[in-house]
């Protein structure tokens, strides 16, 4: 007779290093770091993870009160009648903004530091790009859910995009019919918002969560890129790493809650209402893409969409495009210049798109813009390289 196993109630044992795994077992590890790893710029990912967790928790609360039958008024109800509803809804919105901003920050940090190569980091980077897209799509779905005028404009644009873009023209009709039915139902209001809600709270969020877990475990497998593990100097993952991540996360949540309390969200014009002069602008994370279409200069089909796909493919394949042997930011001048180009481009497109959304620009204007940004990007990198070399020469002499 074999004895039944006794329960282990010491949760900290889960974090203990296991040395006696049988052959064929696999271990998911949490890596320890040296004290040099505890720098805030090494932890940009923990903020994004915190934002994801906060969105799930606050989203569940909002989910209790949302109604697909009357989306706009149920949102109004959350603001006016649910206890703490206004601050939960506002913080959900602001944390979504913060999450997108932090994803950009997280991505650009890895871009400049060059931590997308080596070990499993290439895969981690590519999954990160997928997570970036999922974050944007989930955000857009969330902003559609309120049934405001701007939300329905986005829905209509999305539907027509499917019908008229590459999808509608190339894929067989049955498949498009099936896809549209899955994504939007039969076009009636309750069906449309049931579908959008399911996509927002279940489909995209689950995908994001699943890929995030793989992204995170790959990081734990590879460890900090800039950290050099040294025997005797490692600080155990539990509880130090966990607490460090949690405390920085709590600071983020605190900042968002303060903003949500000081600047509560106002619901824009309901879909169907008519008004002069009150035109809501799309959310800021959409305006760069929106403006990119305006300044593409050659129309959506021939200019904007291929340009957008090209930029995304470049980012996605960055670990393989970067063939430089060295890792330093100035040792990879073209990659760094492209990074600066991205930074300026996104900032310019966001601000411009927010002030003049949907206003087509001339081709000449477009050319001036892109060449100016390209010039600035490359001149700064090469100027810094020359300055660095001069400094080294002076030092050596």
């Amino acid at each position, binding site marked *: 007779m074999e004895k039944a196993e006794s329960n282990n109630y010491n949760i900290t044992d889960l974090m203990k290093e296991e040395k006696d795994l049988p052959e064929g077992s696999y271990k998911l590890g949490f890596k320890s770091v040296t004290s040099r790893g505890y720098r805030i710029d090494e932890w940009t990912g923990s903020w994004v993870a915190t934002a994801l967790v906060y969105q799930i928790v606050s989203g569940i609360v909002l989910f209790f009160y949302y109604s697909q*039958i*009357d*989306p*706009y008024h149920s949102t109004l109800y959350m603001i006016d009648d649910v206890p703490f509803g206004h601050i939960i809804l506002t913080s959900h919105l602001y944390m979504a903004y913060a999450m997108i901003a932090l994803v950009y920050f997280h991505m650009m940090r890895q871009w400049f530091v060059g931590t997308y190569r080596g070990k499993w980091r290439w895969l981690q980077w590519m999954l990160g790009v997928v997570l970036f897209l999922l974050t944007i799509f989930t955000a857009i779905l969330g902003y559609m859910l309120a*049934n405001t*005028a701007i939300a*329905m*404009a986005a829905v*209509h*644009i999305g*539907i*027509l*995009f499917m*019908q*008229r873009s590459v999808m*509608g*023209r190339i894929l067989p009709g*049955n498949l498009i*019919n*099936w896809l549209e*039915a*899955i994504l939007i*139902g*039969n*076009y*009636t*209001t309750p*069906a449309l918002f049931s579908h959008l809600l399911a996509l927002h709270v279940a489909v995209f969020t689950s995908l994001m969560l699943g890929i995030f877990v793989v992204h995170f475990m790959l990081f734990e497998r590879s460890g900090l890129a800039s950290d050099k593990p040294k025997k005797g100097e490692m600080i155990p993952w539990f509880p130090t790493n966990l607490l460090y991540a949690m405390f920085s996360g709590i600071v983020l949540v605190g900042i968002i809650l303060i903003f949500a309390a000081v600047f509560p969200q106002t619901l824009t*014009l*309901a*879909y*169907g*209402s*008519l*008004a*002069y002069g*009150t*035109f809501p602008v799309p959310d800021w994370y959409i305006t760069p893409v929106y403006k990119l*279409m*305006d300044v593409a200069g050659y*129309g*959506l089909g021939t200019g904007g969409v291929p340009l957008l796909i090209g930029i995304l493919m470049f980012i996605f394949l960055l670990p393989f495009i970067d063939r430089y042997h060295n890792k330093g930011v100035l040792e990879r001048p073209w990659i760094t210049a492209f990074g600066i180009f991205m930074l300026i481009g996104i900032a310019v497109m966001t601000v411009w798109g927010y002030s*003049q*959304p*949907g*206003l*087509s*620009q*001339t081709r000449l204007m477009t050319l001036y813009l892109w060449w100016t940004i390209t010039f600035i990007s490359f001149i700064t990198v090469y100027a810094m390289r020359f300055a660095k070399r001069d400094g080294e020469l002076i030092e050596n002499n």
Partner: protein
Amino acid sequence: MANDKNYIPEPEKRAFLKGAGLSIAALMIGGLSVERYVVPKDRGVPVMDNFPLAILEDPSGNRITTDDVIKYAAASPSSTSTPILVFNYPLQDEPNFLLVLKGVKITTPDRSLVPSSGYSPIPPSSKAPMDGIIYTSYGGSNYSIIALSGICQHLGCVPPFLDYHPGNSIPFESKLIGYQENAPNTPAQWPNYGLIYCKCHGSQYNPQWGGRNLYNNGPAASPANHSLPQIMLATDSNNHIYAYGINSSNAVIRTHLQFPNGETYGSQVKSEDLTGGTAIRTSRSPTAYPSSLVTGDITSSSSAKILSTSSLDLNANSSGIILYRTSVVSNENVNGMDWKGSFSGSTSNNKL
């Protein structure tokens, strides 16, 4: 066993291949049949056989007349904007503008209004939508009532993003793109009585030319590649207004292509007949349909045409033609008339 380098797992390999093949076959068969389990049964099925005959009402349910519309639109002649008038047709959530073009009479097609340069002239016999001369409109000598789809042909933006701007309130963005009030060499290029402008992506339409898309005129192109569809209006002897169809000679409402020969405007417009939506409300008294409708310039009886309902090409059942109702809603109250409301189909009562 497994550590032996010479070991070849033949039976397992075969079983795996069999399993994989079966799975792929099952996926293919299942994939073919899955569509009907996922796609709603009412998808792709027309909501109604033909365009409905709908009487225009105010949000309280009172039938409106041409005089009401003219009075409403003339309410603030000195202001920089006129009240927006919108009604759903042919289905819910498909808004249309009810426009009163001031100082313009468009009952007779006027070729002089169509620019000779910039557009290739298309003979009227052609079905092409760009000839800009197929109109049906109603109203007094100084006003013309016209109904145009409020769904932008570019990417489907609706009012208030797509909006009619009278001549004294042309938006700044539109001027930036190319609208010139007094363009010396192109007198017919830009309408001085205003234009329909879409805030989403800058599409511009000329309401006088039957919602014709003004593309490639300015320094930057208007993105839409179709004209705004025109809603066919008719009036009865009480001057009540009816919508009875969409002028297919002009353009097609997005996703509602009604052509006997199918698609004529390129692969990007799908051929669907009144599918994908919810019907507008029917009349409280279904039998009270008009026996005759008048169309044409109602101020001059000589040019007015009497149309029977059969000439409108509407389907009738045993109890006659079903009369539908659609509410004309506005952004403001005018002259004691309260038409303020919402065109959203999600609210059962269009009163806000």
